[in-house]
């Protein structure tokens, strides 16, 4: 089934023309993807901050990619989040052929739709440390802590002068930033948008998740009966989205189309999903309705699958309700087993993987899940499962506060 596009008077089709990612498994989208397919594990002991006293002391900590155009003094001023965001955005803009030789953007007015949950938190922690000690906090910490500053870091790096918006919807932020970017194009508000999410491991967030006792001290095993918690991760994911007409007019090659975005709010509890997964079903339904596609059209689903008891149970129940008992299609996996949960960046990174699955036909296996929950057992992608042509893939995220988001990507031929 193909998506009908370019009808006169219809909403503009949204093309994905570039993507980039930094994860614990690689400094770019392709190397991260390759290692996800191989089943590499990004888990390592955290050495960014002290973890003494925590139950869990590991995370999917990423290496910071080189930024050759920056001096060391400039790099010191950037929070860790910007040092993930800039290379991922660079990769996306370069693939979309939107960079000129000096690294500046060809379209300086393009808006930014960004996502994070903590911004430059490590700078905020240093500031809090200073004032707790009774000293005046230094401007260099407080001045670069807030998420708006990472927007400016990106604008500075690429010479962008358009507007920016920062979305903070917890773990669905990245998907929501991409979805809102698509809405800007569907509504005619923008022709091209750079959208993505970024997150860096920070002590406060790590200790916070540890205090909730939802970090695993074992392997992260999404949708497994024996799952014991999530693995925190970090990194960034970016997509260049543009109207198909805009992309074709500048001879850019669309990688695929973003054809649906659904969003729904679960009011059940601040940190626990409603056991029936109703809001998640609503988000998926909304994304499919927008593309006028039936449920069975989705070939691969990148699930949120954190590996926590409550999330995975509710999510599995929602999928079973949505796709039918014993469902086998779409094939499904949670890539958080290898790259961890990158919070505000998760939705954007997983969207990149969903685009890669669509364009290569390769399915990321569900690693670390020997004893799956019965609701998803038949659908989980098995290691060595053969690649297949896919027409539509979906990426789903669920967050604290009840944010649920679903993105639908469709093949463009």
């Amino acid at each position, binding site marked *: 089934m193909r998506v009908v596009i370019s009808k006169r008077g219809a909403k503009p089709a949204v093309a994905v023309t570039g993507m980039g990612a930094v994860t614990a498994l690689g400094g770019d989208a392709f190397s991260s993807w390759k290692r996800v397919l191989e089943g590499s594990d990004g888990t390592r002991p955290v050495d960014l901050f*002290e*973890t003494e*006293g*925590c*139950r869990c002391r590991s995370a999917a900590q990423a290496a910071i990619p080189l930024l050759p155009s920056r001096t060391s003094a400039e790099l010191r001023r950037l929070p860790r989040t910007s040092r993930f965001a800039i290379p991922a955005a660079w990769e996306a803009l370069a693939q979309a052929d939107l960079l000129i030789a000096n690294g500046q953007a060809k379209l300086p*007015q393009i*808006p930014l739709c960004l996502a994070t*949950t903590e*911004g430059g938190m490590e700078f*905020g922690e240093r*500031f*809090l*440390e*200073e*004032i*707790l*000690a*009774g000293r*005046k906090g*230094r*401007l260099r*910490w*407080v001045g670069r802590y*807030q*998420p*708006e*500053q990472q*927007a*400016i870091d990106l*604008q500075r790096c690429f010479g962008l*002068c358009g*507007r*920016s*918006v*920062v*979305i*903070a*919807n*917890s773990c669905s932020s990245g998907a929501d930033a991409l979805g*809102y970017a698509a*809405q800007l194009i*569907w*509504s005619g*508000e923008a022709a091209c948008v750079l959208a993505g999410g970024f997150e860096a491991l920070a002590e*406060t967030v790590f*200790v*916070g*998740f540890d*205090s*909730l*006792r939802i970090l695993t001290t074992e392997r992260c095993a999404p949708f497994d009966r024996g799952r014991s918690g999530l693995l925190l991760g970090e990194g960034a994911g970016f997509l260049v989205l543009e109207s198909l007409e805009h992309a074709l007019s500048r001879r850019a090659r669309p990688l695929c189309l973003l054809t649906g975005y659904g*969003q*729904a*709010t679960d*009011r059940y509890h*601040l*940190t626990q999903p409603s056991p029936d997964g109703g809001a998640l079903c609503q988000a998926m339904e909304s994304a499919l309705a927008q593309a006028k596609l039936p449920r069975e059209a989705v070939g691969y689903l990148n699930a949120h699958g954190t590996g926590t008891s409550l999330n995975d149970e509710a999510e599995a129940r929602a999928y079973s309700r949505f796709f039918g008992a014993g469902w086998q299609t779409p094939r499904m996996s949670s890539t958080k087993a290898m790259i961890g949960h990158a919070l505000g960046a998760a939705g954007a990174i997983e969207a990149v993987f969903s685009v890669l699955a669509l364009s290569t036909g390769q399915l990321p296996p569900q690693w670390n899940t020997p004893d799956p929950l019965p609701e998803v057992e038949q659908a989980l992608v098995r290691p060595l499962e053969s690649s297949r042509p896919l027409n539509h893939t979906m990426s789903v995220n669920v967050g*604290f*506060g*009840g944010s649920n988001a679903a993105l639908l990507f469709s093949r463009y031929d």
Partner: protein
Amino acid sequence: MTDRSPLHVSAVGVVSPAGLGAEQLAQLHRPAEKEMGLSSSPSRSFPVFLVDRSDPRWNTWAAEPRLRRAGGLAQFLVEAIHQVLFGVSEQERSRVGLIAVFNNGSIAHTARFFAGYRGQGRRFASPLFFPETVYNAATSHAAAVCGLGGPTCSLVGDESAWVEGIRMARIWLELGRATMAVVAAAEEVTSVSLDAFHSARWLRKSRPFRPSEGSAALLLTTRPQDALFALVDAPTSFPYRSQEELASAAAKLACELPPGIPVYHTAEASWLGSLEKTLFRQMPSAGSFPYLGEAFAVSAGWHTIRAASLLSERRREILLPLWGSIHQLSWLHLRLAGDVGATAANPPSEPIQ
């Protein structure tokens, strides 16, 4: 550049140091300035504008189970949203979207959580406080308490994020994602945020900056019936980081404003006041109100509501520049209800005064 679909504002909600409700905003009835000390040096205090939390109406929200661990930020947000939803049925609320805007967010909870685990050890970190540190915790509480069933989104930013929120609401309404949308902002002054302003040198005597707190909300629809006023969001915003970039961004903003329409001055008492005065000296003034301090997007919301109260048969349009304190400048174009077709290029029958 204001030929975009207007949004209709059918209700406004306010929590401010002047009191609860939009009527209180029009004029300060009593001195609202108070003193607050720094976390790092409690004996050193600075003037701030605070919401009067002794008002018995706060007891309602303090008793709300969902808000039992939430702080002032969530309570301010819920109260302003509650005000705009007066008369909106439960059924209608199921299709109302919510966009909440913050700048400092729940920094009070973050600082408390941080101080707790640093003081007592990581193994004793409080699982009760941590979830409240998340930016969208207050948004989630508000949607739950007010029974909103549409999409929700939390934005982080300065005054310009208020405009981004309104833009998002317009897009949701245009795309049919919601039948009505609430755009709300909330901010809370804490001794930690005061420390941050102090570090940023915003509290120097030479700068008139006064931290403030509260919330503001608008109920937006695409239907003109029963609208209080209409507004159009700016086509773009202008980012800056340095003083030089700010001057350039401000000049671009001034060039973009349609000529001949009175400008409501929003920066008169802030450090951007002189820049605003210089840029708009050739444009008619719509006036301004007594200073209520700076609370980022909340201030933008208050300015919107105050400026709208100046719309009349004789002043059918007002431009509202919004000077983002941190990274972006933007603006709104307010119009009298039922007068949305008029623009500076196509003026209404009565001349603008």
